[in-house]
Each structure stands twice: as structure tokens, then as C-alpha cells.
């Protein structure tokens, strides 16, 4: 087991390099660079930048050098100093920008994850056990509803209802007076009052799909002979459900951890933009559009690292819960 983990960790290193290089190349593939985008932005406000200034800018950002050199410089900075470079657009170190956003992203993602699992797992089990009952039909109707409504539309509708009908302050995660204030009890409370809306929106579609998956998993397990064996032993229906089929039906969820972590960053872009949330996703989108390559590159690298770590974690967990994987 330990050997397996060490081996997997070792293989992560070349994969990370390969992905970071690819990401770097891909970001630079579109014609032009950050300076071109920058000049275009300035031009739209009637400021004209001459060729000399542009060249100076390129030199300052190191954009005049060959791509390989740029890449090696960037990677060297990361490996030796943990320095992810400077964001062109924000004129700030990339790491600072990302970490600032990551904390809130994590809060939001965890909150919606907990909401999703807390709702979806019991409902899925109920739907499977009481198949074709009124309750099952009601939840099924809800899941189809939740799956088919685009989340940005739900966001707009809920925002409208909350703002117009209840006079709530929607959009963002903080009220304006707390936005730049240091952390305090008041700010925490303010965060909580703002958090429910994005959490609800994000949870609806994932709850809906998770209910379906859970129901299907349980329906696969319920008619299995080992369930009948447990019943013949005299276990109560609830105890045997929790101990046997539920336990096995949960296994597939452990493998979802692999894409749960990268989703922290890139997931729910549209909702975050509509709701003006200060999370990582809008920043990633912005950096890609502006060809702010060190910022975008750092994001891609982070997503990649989280994917690799996520799949390692889920593999280890799967081996821990399922003796068939561990021992066979």
C-alpha cells in the first residue's frame, strides 16, 4: 500500500511538468499577448499607445523572449522560490491573488457539498427503497426539474425574488461595508447571510443528479442476495439497509472525489459571475481572456495538481473501504 502511494506521488511530478508546459503553450497559442490585449483596452478609451511603449512593456514583462525561456524562468521561480510570477493585469504576485480567492471558494464549495450530500443521500435511499411510491415520484419530479433548469437562470430568478420580494442584498458574499473590512464576528455573520443563496443555487443541480445516482446505485444493490441473507438473519430493515446495501452503494461516490477538488476552482463559473462572487472561477476566466499568462498558468497548474491529488485520495479511500480492491 505504502509502495503504491509513493509510486503514485513520484509519477505526479512528470505529469505536473507536462501539464504545466502544455498549459503554458495553450495560453500563448491565440495570436497576440497580454500587451496586445492591454493596448486594445486602452484604445477603446481613446488612448493611443505607440510601438515604442508597447515594446517597452513587452520587455518589462519578459514577453519579448522565446516561449521556452519564459516557461523555464517561470517554472524555475516556482520550484526554487515558490514564486508563481506577477499578474500583468493586477500587478500583484499571482500566489497572493489566488490564495485570497481560494479561502472563500473553499467555504462556498464545502458548504454546497455538505448541503448536497446531506440532502441527496437520504433522499436517494428513500427513493430507492420506496420505489414508485408517491414520495419517490415527487422527488423524481424535483430531480428532473433541478437537472433541467440551467443554474444561471435559477440564480437570476432567485436573485430577483430575494431582492424584489424580500428586499435582501444579493450578489457577492459580503455587504458593501464589510467588503474590505478585516475579519470580525460581524463579517462572519454577514458572510453567512449572503452564503445561502449561492449555496442553494449550486446545490440544486448537484443534489438532483446525486439523488438519481444514489437511487440507481441502491436499486442495483437492494435485490442482491446478501441483503436477503441479512433480512433472514432478523436484522431490522433500517439497520440492514445502512450496514449492507448503503455501504456498498456509497463506494462509487468515493471515486467522485477525484473531480470534486478541481471543480473547486473551475466549477460554477457562470453562477459565480452572475452572482458576482469573489471566488476563483471568475478570476480564472478573466485571466484567460486577458492572456494574463502567469495567473492563468498558475490556475491550470493548481487544477491539475488538485486532480492528481484528488484521484490519489479517492484511490486510497476506495482501497480502505473496499476489501476487494485492497486484497485482490
Amino acid at each position, binding site marked *: 500500500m505504502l509502495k503504491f502511494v509513493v509510486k503514485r506521488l513520484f509519477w505526479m511530478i512528470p505529469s505536473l511538468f507536462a501539464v504545466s508546459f502544455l498549459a503554458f503553450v495553450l495560453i500563448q497559442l491565440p495570436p497576440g499577448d497580454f500587451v496586445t490585449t492591454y493596448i486594445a483596452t486602452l484604445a477603446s478609451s481613446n488612448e493611443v499607445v505607440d510601438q515604442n511603449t508597447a515594446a517597452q512593456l513587452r520587455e518589462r514583462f519578459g514577453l519579448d523572449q522565446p516561449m521556452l525561456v519564459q516557461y523555464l524562468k517561470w517554472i524555475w521561480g516556482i520550484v526554487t522560490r515558490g514564486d508563481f510570477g506577477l499578474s500583468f493585469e493586477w500587478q500583484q504576485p499571482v500566489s497572493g491573488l489566488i490564495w485570497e480567492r481560494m479561502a472563500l471558494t473553499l467555504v462556498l464549495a464545502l458548504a454546497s457539498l455538505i448541503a448536497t450530500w446531506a440532502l441527496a443521500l437520504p433522499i436517494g435511499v428513500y427513493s430507492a427503497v420506496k420505489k414508485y411510491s408517491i414520495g419517490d415520484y415527487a422527488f423524481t419530479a424535483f430531480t428532473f426539474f433541478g437537472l433541467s433548469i440551467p443554474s444561471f437562470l435559477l440564480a437570476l430568478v432567485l436573485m430577483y425574488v430575494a431582492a424584489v420580494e424580500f428586499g435582501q442584498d444579493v450578489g457577492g458574499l459580503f455587504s458593501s461595508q464589510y467588503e474590505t473590512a478585516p475579519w470580525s464576528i460581524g463579517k462572519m455573520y454577514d458572510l453567512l447571510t449572503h452564503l445561502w443563496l449561492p449555496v442553494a443555487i449550486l446545490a440544486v443541480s448537484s443534489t438532483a443528479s446525486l439523488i438519481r445516482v444514489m437511487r440507481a446505485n441502491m436499486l442495483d444493490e437492494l*435485490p*442482491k*442476495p*446478501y441483503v*436477503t*441473507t*441479512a*433480512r*433472514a*438473519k*432478523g*436484522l*431490522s*430493515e433500517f439497520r440492514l439497509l445502512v*450496514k*449492507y446495501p448503503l*455501504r*456498498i452503494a456509497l463506494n462509487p461516490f468515493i471515486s467522485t472525489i477525484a473531480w470534486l477538488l478541481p471543480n473547486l476552482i473551475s466549477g460554477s463559473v457562470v453562477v459565480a459571475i452572475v452572482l458576482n462572487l469573489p471566488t476563483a472561477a471568475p478570476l480564472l476566466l478573466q485571466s484567460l481572456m486577458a492572456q494574463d499568462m502567469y495567473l492563468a498558468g498558475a490556475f491550470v497548474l493548481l487544477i491539475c495538481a488538485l486532480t492528481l491529488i484528488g484521484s490519489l485520495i479517492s484511490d486510497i479511500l476506495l482501497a480502505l*473501504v*473496499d*476489501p*476487494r480492491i485492497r*486484497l*485482490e
Partner: protein
Amino acid sequence: MTDILSIAPRPSMTANKPLLEVRNLVTEFPLRTGIFRAVDDLSFSIEPGKTLCVVGESGSGKSVTARSILQIIDSPGRIASGSILLHQPDGTSLDLAKLDPRGRAIRSVRGRDIAMIFQEPMSSLSPVHTVGDQITEALRLHLRMGKAEARAEAISLLRQVEIPNPEKAIDRYAFQYSGGMRQRAMIAMALACKPQLLIADEPTTALDVTTQAEILDLISRLQKAHGMAVLFITHDMGVVAQIADDVLVMHHGVAKEYGPVEQIFHSPQDPYTRMLIGSVLKLEQKAEIRLARPPLDTTAAPLLDIRNLSMHFGDMKALDDVSISLLPGETLGIVGESGSGKTTMGRSIMRLYDPTAGEMHYRRADGTVLDLAKIGGGELKAARRELRMVFQDPFGSLNPRMTVSQVIGEPLLVNGIARGKNLDERVCHLMEQVGLDPTTRERYPHAFSGGQRQRIGIARAITLNPRIIVADEATSALDVSVRFQVLDLLMRLQDELGLAYIFISHDIGVIRYMCDRVGVMYRGKLVEVGEADKVCNAPDHPYTQALISAIPRPDPRDRDHSRRFRYTEPGTVKNGSSAR
């Protein structure tokens, strides 16, 4: 090692007070098309310490009967009427049929008074819980034992069912056990609370005959020790003859005959029972078709000559230096227990596997000889038209999305032999040949019974006028009454088409009925080859002798278990029964 246990035939149907009385039981399944009565007005009773065998073919309702007693019928089944009286030692009686299937009362009966073991020991045990966990569960639930006490008791239970190294085995998972050990663990689990009645639903069907014999011995030994009643459900008349005190014969949910085992086997009253016994006894001798045949020309050049064939999967030698030949028009049987390499042999001949070493010389109709182990491409394709296969599972081997005419006609179509109207005519002709009504050719496989599906599989195999058919357990999944019909069909086709069969089976009865010569396989090696009569009645090799000795004889007067023994390979250390 000899496994000696003789049970004297016990007097049956005594006037003891029964333990369980089932009266006019009706179990129904509401379906879209109406109500299906799986069990219809069934009455029987079981006395303490006695064994009642419920016997019947698939769909007879015998499993549903067993499950009705514990009220664990698969949804949407339910008990519609009747009573199931459990007479308890304190003199009170409990009507199980009236209890709420989810209620506390029935739950305290399950596992404590009445325990159950099932057919598939692998899937009946949870794959993610240790065996010990599943055994202690019942102890802690019903006997309120503490953790340590329950664990000690579970170890002693595992020792009782003869699992080697119970202290270690208790922390293992079901998939780490062999088939026989899994069923032993199931029995340990069922016996945990010393039930008064053990319901065994086809507990040995998935096991090899030698393992089956050991499990049956174990059950009857434990039955004696605990004075427990056993309700044994099976389709195997041989097993019934060996263990039953009383027998209940079921057919389509109805009791056909109910009486002491002696009466059922030696003076059956009901025509269905007679048919069932008859079809079992039929497999005790050579087929009539074969008796009528002229003797086989043993001087002819062999059709297929297998020399030193080996097939290794990693370190596992599935086939180890096997040499055997097949004469034209011959039926060659291959017997062996699971894991003996008999299926690998069939697949290697079809070149579904590429053999590791050895030669397979196939003599074509024009006299030229091909080495099937070496050829490839077009030659192999051509050879495969002449070597066809019939599979074990009549359900899994037919594509459910193809009509019967597509299934049968496909070989003709893909080989570019016939199409359109011509194809249709040939399909109709083939269906008539295997005894199917050609007007049903546009139906899908699900509309046919197991026996009919196997006929479809046979029709598909003979489409291209093959010369050799490899039949891998072709009748194992079929009921006895259907089994010999399919065997007779195969032999009739053999006469009509001049086929040679390689007939792979674990069932000696089928081999005796059908085959001219038999090869016995054990752990990848061919240990004995000879005339079918000789191998089935007076085998030379000790393994074959052990195998034959383990087969339950379908005669309750022939219950001598002392002649039974298990073969141990000379030079190997035996580490426990049925461990492979």
C-alpha cells in the same frame, strides 16, 4: 482422507408433533398482467429432527415457499392466505403468515428459530464485511452477546463447520474463501443461534459434487447434533434420495405429491413425479439412440488429434500437457470439477485462446491435416466454420436484441453464404431440425424457455454444416426433464449430420447417457481416458473413483456414505477441505 458418516434410514411420518405446519399457503405476485400465484394451496409439515425435501423444476415455486415461511419474499410477492404455524418449545404456536413482514415478531423468529442458507454462497455474503462480522451479527442481535463473547462463539462455529484455522479465517472476506468454504461459512452463520429449523435453498447447486457431498454430510451431522429440522429445497433427485425423510414434489406452485422418500422413489403415485424420477433414472444408463447404433469405427483416422496441449495463464497451468483424440462420429466427454481446465480445453480447441504449447491436428473433409494451434487469418476462419460451439448459459449466449431468425441466420450472413429469401428458408429448416416451430422465428429470445433457447443455440451451431461441435456444459442450466430431450436432440443430429461432439460436463449422468469415450480432467491434467462405461462404472484412477463415489445416487435405499472419499493428489499437502 475418508469422510465417513452413515445415516440409517429413519422411520418417516411418525406421529410426533410437528415443528412447523403449513396449511393452504397461497403466495401471490401482483403483476401488470394480473396476479401470478407462485404457491397455490400448499400444505405440509416438518417434525423436529427430520428432513423435508421440496423438489421441483425451475418455476415450481419451491424457493418462494421457503421464503414465504420467513416472510422474505422478493417484492412484490405477498402471502395471500393460509397459515404457517410454528410450534414453539413452550407449547405456544405462532402463525408466521399473519405477522407483519417488517415487524419485531417475525424478526425475532428469523435467524433465531428459523435460519436460512442460500444457493449462491458468494453473492449471499456481503463482499465488504468480514465473515466474522456477519456471523457475530446474528449472535449479538438475538442472544445479546458481547463483542468478545460473540467472536469466541463465531470461531467455535467456524470450527464446527470444519473451516481450517478459524482464528484467522474469521477476519477474512467471503471472496478469499473457496466455494465450499463460503457455503460452510453460510451454514455457520445460519446455525449461530441454534435454530429449530434450517431452510436450505439449493445450498449445493453451485458446488462441485465432491464439495456437495461434504456439505450434505456436514448438514446432516449438525442436524443430528442439534436435533434440528431441515427444509431442503433442491432440483436434484439424487440429493433428495440421499438425505430426505419426507418429500414434497412441486410443479407450477402446486403440490404434486407429498410423502415419505421411500414412497416417492419406489411407488410414486403422481404422473409428474413418475416423469421426474423417470428422467433421472434415464440418465443412469446409456441413451437408447446410442444402443441402437452400430459400433464406432475405432480404426478410422482421428478427426481431431490433440497432442501435448498446454495453456498457461501466468503461473496457473489451466491445461497441462493434454493429449486426446476425437474419432469421426464420436462423442467424447470431458469431465472434471470446476477449475479442472475443461472449459479452457474447449476454448483452446476453438482457438478462443492461443495455446501456450502443443498441437491440434484437424483432418479436413478432403483429407488434408491442419494444425489448429498454428493457423491464423483465413485458414482459421475457414476452420471455425467446421468447428462450432454450444454454450452453457441459454440466457447469456443469445443476444436479447436479435430475433431468433437473426441469431440462427447470422453465421450464414457473415460468411456470405445465404441472404434474403434463401436465408429465411434455411433458418426455417434449421428450426424444424431442432424441433422449434419456424413461425416463431421473428420473436426475441426472452419469449422462449431455457430448453427452447438451448435448441436455438444448437440450431446456430449447426448452421454451417460443422463437423465438430464443442458443447460446454450445454445442459447444466436445464431442468432434468428438459435435459435428456436436448441430449436426445444432439444425438439425433449427430446421426443426421455425421457430427463429432466434444461434450464438456461436470455431470457424470449426462456423460454416461451421451458419450462414447470420456476424458477425466483434474487440475489441468487429463488423468484418465477410456470407454464411457468403464470410466463411469469401474474407473482406474483414484481421482475418478473419488468423483464417482461422491455422486448422490437417486435411490433412497442406497445411502451408503462410507464408500465416499476425497481424492488427495499424492505429494501435495492438504490444507483443508475444498480449498483450491
